């Protein structure tokens, strides 16, 4: 028997029913693969974090030490990670209440599925801020908070907040001035040997420039000044120069101050009073 063609309403209902089932099956499969992929990615990152290869470089710019940390990140999942941005806030309440530095990725990073990408964080520790004198001379444990924002599998925004500790290495750690015994010279001046000692603890930072030292009497009159050429990478530095001061110069109670001037960097170091 020849069956008549179904009505448009019947066919529409049938098409809609099939579409609803297909959409559900597709979404269930998508959800399952997203979950599996997220676990794979998480495990991959956990494995990677144990042996994270990162490179740090530092430079002196203006009144700041700029630290660039670069590290690779892998995505072992199937789905892309898009728009990944990192913001890090560095603070230490005992040094100053306001954040010492705030940094973020220059541009959002994308990591394809089963691919990898490189994240670069440029952190500027401005030594002209209130924490500057402390950070110039002292190493410190700085608390960091890292905020990660990304979009996973195109439809799932993820925000991660991680606390971490950052060890700050001071570029002029343990800066001291040793003033030797003044010796009268035949030309009517006094020869004063001054030794400057400091340690550069900032990883990857080359301290290159001139250390200009000024000895000022307690009445505010400058006694003598001298410049020390500095060229050092990490480690201790000891520089000795002989200063020639007028006979009238009262060294007892005088202050010794220095300014470091490098390529694009100019900062005053803390003063010290001579005994």
């Amino acid at each position: 028997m020849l069956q008549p063609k179904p009505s448009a309403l019947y066919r529409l209902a049938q098409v809609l029913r099939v579409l609803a089932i297909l959409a559900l099956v597709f979404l269930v499969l998508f959800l399952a693969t997203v979950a599996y992929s997220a676990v794979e990615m998480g495990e991959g990152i956990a494995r990677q974090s144990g042996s994270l290869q990162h490179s740090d470089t530092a430079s002196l710019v203006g009144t700041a030490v700029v630290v660039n940390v670069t590290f690779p990140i892998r995505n072992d999942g199937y789905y892309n990670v898009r728009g990944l941005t990192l913001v890090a806030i560095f603070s230490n309440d005992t040094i100053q209440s306001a954040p010492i530095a705030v940094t973020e990725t220059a541009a959002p990073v994308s990591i394809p599925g089963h691919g990898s990408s490189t994240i670069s964080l440029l952190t500027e520790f401005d030594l002209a801020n209130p924490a500057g004198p402390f950070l110039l001379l002292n190493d410190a444990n700085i608390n960091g908070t890292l905020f990660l924002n990304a979009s996973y599998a195109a439809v799932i925004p993820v925000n991660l907040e991680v606390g971490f500790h950052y060890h700050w290495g001071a570029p002029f750690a343990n800066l001291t001035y040793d003033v030797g015994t003044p010796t009268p010279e035949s030309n009517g001046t006094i020869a004063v040997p001054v030794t400057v000692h400091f340690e550069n603890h900032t990883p990857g930072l080359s301290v290159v420039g001139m250390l200009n030292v000024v000895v000022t009497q307690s009445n505010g009159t400058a006694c003598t000044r001298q410049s020390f050429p500095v060229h050092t990478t990490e480690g201790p530095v000891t520089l000795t120069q002989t200063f020639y001061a007028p006979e009238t110069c009262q060294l007892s109670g005088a202050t010794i101050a220095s300014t470091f001037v490098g390529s694009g960097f100019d900062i005053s170091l803390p003063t010290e009073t001579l005994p």
Partner: protein
Amino acid sequence: MSGSPSPPAGYPPYEPPGVSGARIAGAVSLTLLYFGLVGLLPYYLEQYAARYGLSAPIEPAFLVIAGFIVAFLAGLSVATKPTRAWGPVRVMSAGFDLIYVVYLLQNPVYATTIRGFSLTITYGHLLELFLIPPAIGLLAGIVTTLGDIRRPWERISFQFPQRAMAPVYG
């Protein structure tokens, strides 16, 4: 479809099977399967996650109750297929699914803290995708109900043709 008028000339005779024992068994099986997937699986996933300190975004009891209703309505839809109630039951089933997803969308944020890591996942966009199948299902239910009202013999004659009479489309 008891009480339905006979099909007009040209339509094959049809045999509404009624709500048989086999159909009820099928409906119960589907209900149990759905309940396992929509009610119990999320419940146990939350319990599993709680062992690792992950907080539950949705009350476990709510998941089980809502999952049961979703599963029950899906089973009822199977049981009532040979009747005129099928369309309205599908509308109810898809409508409840929609309401359930819309309810979950009220707070689509999962936030937890593990070992000092504070993790927030926003799954609103993902849930919005899950509005699509019930929305299409709701439309299908409405169209089926309208079809059953306008041509009460048509769906049954195609879906439940008399035995030994395979439909031949012309």
